[in-house]
């Protein structure tokens, strides 16, 4: 009986150590990748979004270029698009009816555009959400 107990114990310990090691590695990888909501630096954003010019770009230009927005606020004064960096060509707009799953590749950003009273671009930002 003592032998049986000893062999059982060894088997359990082996599997526990194996599982523990895998989890520690997995957890360490995850911990290194805390993903906070971060507003991308304006200069970096403007490099990627060179077609956006404050005070000059019109709402119609945006719709023509990027299509229907994902969300709109304050009667359309603020609109947002979801952007992915999964392909090299930027901006890769995720269509408004496209579902975003956890498996969607690459980083995801929200492009926020705020328009002034004359429908000209007043402000914008790129927020990394994942």
């Amino acid at each position, binding site marked *: 009986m003592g032998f*049986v107990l000893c062999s059982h114990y060894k088997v359990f310990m082996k599997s526990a150590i194996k599982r523990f090691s895998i989890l520690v590695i997995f957890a360490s990888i995850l911990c290194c990748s805390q993903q906070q909501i971060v507003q991308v630096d304006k200069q970096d954003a403007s490099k990627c979004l060179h077609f956006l010019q404050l005070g000059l770009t019109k709402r119609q230009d945006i719709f023509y270029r990027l299509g229907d927005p994902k969300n709109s606020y304050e009667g359309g004064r603020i609109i947002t698009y979801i952007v992915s960096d999964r392909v090299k060509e930027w901006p890769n707009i995720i269509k408004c009816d496209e579902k975003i799953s956890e498996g969607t590749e690459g980083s995801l950003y929200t492009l926020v555009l705020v328009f002034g009273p004359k429908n000209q671009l007043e402000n914008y930002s790129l927020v990394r959400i994942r």
Partner: protein
Amino acid sequence: MMLKQRRYIFLIIVIILINSCLYIPTPEHGVGVVPDEAMNFLVPGETTRADVILRFGDPIQRFEEDRFFLYHWKLIDGYLIILDADSPMEELNYLCMEFTHENLLKRWKHFEGGFWFNHPEKQIVEWMKDKELTPE
């Protein structure tokens, strides 16, 4: 002899249980986390709805024609493993905001919900209904 066998069986069961339950604590991590520093930028009466969206992106939920915004994220503190199934120990976090008719931030609150058995949904609903702070 019977007693000795029972002891061994009991010991084996204890070992199996101890071995099959494992909690791995980890530093807090999660996706879409709103850092505490970012919340400092929320000033009632000054911050506009546009400022909030420019800073945090789309809220996860909008209520009453955008009077209320709700941002949500989960913070994982560790993993609980029972037999071969693992479950993250998630702490639910909600950032709630209320805006005025002038599109200014009226008030905000960060709800830290504990784990899955302590959902802050009720507190959020109460907060939204708070008549003293939200006159008709």
